[in-house]
């Protein structure tokens, strides 16, 4: 692909004062971030330590570094999202990149232009990284196959939301240290949750004990009895009171209104009675247990107001860590992407 942008002289090796690239950044070879289902412990560790460095940058009086100066990041969101998009945008800006938000309609098909054409156009304009949110599972894979720039998946359909899972992990590690052997309960609409899928891959690959809890209608087919390597090895439990016993982390998932009318559950009343994360249930978890939620929350449905804003809640911490994690992703991805085109 040709680039119409006049190539700016780029710092030979991006000057990154105080972003101490991890001692072993050769562990990172990815040009795209599509999912976490094939991540090794070394790569995850590198992401976490890079996120630490980014946290340090964000804590400065003037949180700006020129690490990605001269790089162009485009966000291409086919679905609305406040927090993910602004979090990526800020991450790019803190690192000195030019960030352009591309308006996209809800579907490339109704818009008339195919996804592949859109991606190639953005690349021709000068995108080094396209951060993509799409309602269709697998859309970023299609983009990555046809793009020479980097693709970062900011959520695709029901499939994956890797940066959310990474910030979830970062948040857990801040409290727990290592997640190995820790019990994480994911409660709610797992069937329709890309966050849950990415969380399950990431946490199980690090040795956490993941229990998934939902009514059987919201448990994905094959999850309970998948063969090795097919799906993340999690335990399925339909009774939340049983599931939360001795949990270290309880993560509630958003229950969308359309699931209530779609016949998956009888309605809000029964759902919240059986599956709401509230103080009574949380009392069954470990005393130091904390609660997470990928947002936006339906307080009073999947999580009680008291728990959402209580002492055991880490929901705001998740959001705050989002920027640092996305800085780490953009930084690592761009280094490989830049090298591959050089």
């Amino acid at each position, binding site marked *: 692909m040709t680039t119409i942008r006049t190539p700016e002289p780029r710092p030979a090796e991006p000057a990154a004062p105080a972003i101490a690239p991890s001692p072993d950044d050769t562990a990172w070879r990815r040009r795209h971030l*599509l*999912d976490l*289902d*094939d991540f090794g412990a070394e790569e995850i560790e590198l992401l976490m330590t890079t996120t630490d460095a980014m946290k340090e940058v964000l804590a400065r009086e003037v949180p700006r570094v020129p690490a990605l100066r001269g790089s162009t990041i485009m966000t291409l969101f086919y679905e609305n999202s406040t927090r993910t998009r602004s979090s990526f945008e800020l991450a790019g800006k803190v690192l000195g990149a030019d960030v352009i938000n591309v308006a996209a309609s809800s579907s*490339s*098909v109704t818009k008339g232009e*195919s*996804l*592949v054409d859109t991606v190639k156009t953005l690349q021709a304009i000068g995108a080094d990284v396209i951060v993509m949110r*799409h309602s*269709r*599972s*697998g*859309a970023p*894979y*299609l983009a990555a196959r046809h793009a020479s720039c980097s693709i970062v998946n900011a959520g*695709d*359909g*029901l*499939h*994956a939301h890797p940066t959310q899972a990474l910030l979830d992990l970062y948040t857990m590690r801040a409290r727990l240290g290592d997640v190995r052997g820790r019990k994480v309960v994911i409660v709610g609409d797992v069937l329709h949750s*890309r966050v849950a*899928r990415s969380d399950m891959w990431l946490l199980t690959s690090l040795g956490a004990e993941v229990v998934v809890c939902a009514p059987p209608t919201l448990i*994905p*087919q*094959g*999850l309970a009895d*998948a*063969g090795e390597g*097919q*799906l993340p090895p999690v335990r399925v439990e339909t009774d939340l009171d049983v599931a939360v016993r001795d949990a270290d982390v309880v993560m509630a998932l958003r229950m969308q209104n359309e699931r209530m009318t779609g016949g998956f559950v009888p309605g809000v009343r029964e759902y919240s009675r059986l599956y709401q994360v509230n103080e009574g249930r949380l009392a069954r978890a470990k005393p130091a247990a904390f609660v997470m939620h990928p947002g936006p929350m339906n307080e009073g449905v999947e999580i009680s107001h008291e728990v959402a804003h209580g002492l055991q809640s880490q929901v705001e911490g998740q959001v705050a860590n989002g920027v640092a994690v996305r800085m780490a992703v953009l930084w690592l991805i761009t280094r490989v992407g830049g090298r591959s085109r050089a």
Partner: protein
Amino acid sequence: MSERIIIRGGRVIDPARRLDEIADVLLDSGHIVEVVRGGAADGAREIDARGLVVAPGFVDLHTHLRDPGLEYKEDIASGTRAAARGGFTTVCAMPNTQPAMDNRATVEYVLRTAAAEAIVRVLPIGAVSKDRAGEALAELGDLAAAGCVGFSDDGAPVDDATLMRRALEYASAFGLPVIDHCEEPSLSHGAVMHEGWVATRLGLRGAPAAAESSMVERDVALAAATGAHVHIAHVSTRAAVDAVRRAKARGVHVTAEATPHHLTLTDETVAFGALGGDALLYDTDAKVNPPLRPQDDVDACVDGLADGTIDCVATDHAPHALIEKLCEFDEAAFGMSGLETAFGLCMRLVHAGRLDLATLVERMTLGPVRALGLDRVVPGIATLAAGAPADIVLLDPERAWVVDPERFASKGKNTPLAGVTLRGAVVATVAGGRMVFESEAELV
């Protein structure tokens, strides 16, 4: 046009006469003259078939020729050329064209165009309902008179059970079957693949096997109640195979077909492609309806084909334009281009010892003919009897080749098999005594 040809020294398999021996086949003026050893062939073109299998031309009960209306996907000329390359000398054209083949004029258009442009025989299948809308019966009598060999709303099931019942009853007056695409819509709504771990891995919506088998059970019950003939299109699940097997044992008039891809590929192809690997592909060329299923269902279909529960192989050749597959998986069209890979793909079953070659040949020739009763329309079809149409295929069961969609005669390059090596090739196809396909490499 048709010439005098003698095909010498091949292994002649003629399922109709349970013939499987080395012999010569003499053709003249578009008909079989005789199958003998050391036949005299004064002035005939000699074809050396030593080391090859000589069989009746394949018959496909399930071909989407897309003509009229969707000629950008395929037309009668390109579709029948693809058929010839795949060894097929008869294809049954499915009626989901635009307009649908729900009226005599459209059927006559297809037959007229086929007479002018097709290089193999085209037998039309009429729609069951007007506009394939599943609401009111099409004029089945008119369609039968125009030459339709069966009725189907394929692409969609006949959802309304009463309409299905009436269609079966009404069609029986013409001695023709209703061919049903069995899929309970309320179970498959929004589905783009089979429901199971692969769909969960990919975050794609899946249809359970019961979406197919529950409607097969319904159709069997209606066929039993009416005494009419139902033909189950593209069976893909163990439960559906079992339902057909039980029905046949009870004497219900039910026949069934399975596609080469449902007999050989699993739903993992959607995720990892036909060549395998670890990377997720979301291969839209593996998006078909019914969807590719897990190995257990594939095994059941193969067993069903071997024991005769499934009467025949049918391709469900469903060509699409590139842009209809070069898109998000959810948006991609269902279907794969199947005529040119059918034999090579099915040969996997033979090489794996699951099916013997003579049985495969039967399931691609006499099997489909008997399932729909095509010999009433075309006497001698799919046999090598003296006087039968000179429709013949020459096969090399051992020859390996790499699938290259760019070489397809079909306009539909949509196959997940690109780059895959298949062992078993069509060497030449003779239709109506005329050589309609000769493979570049082999014949001298």
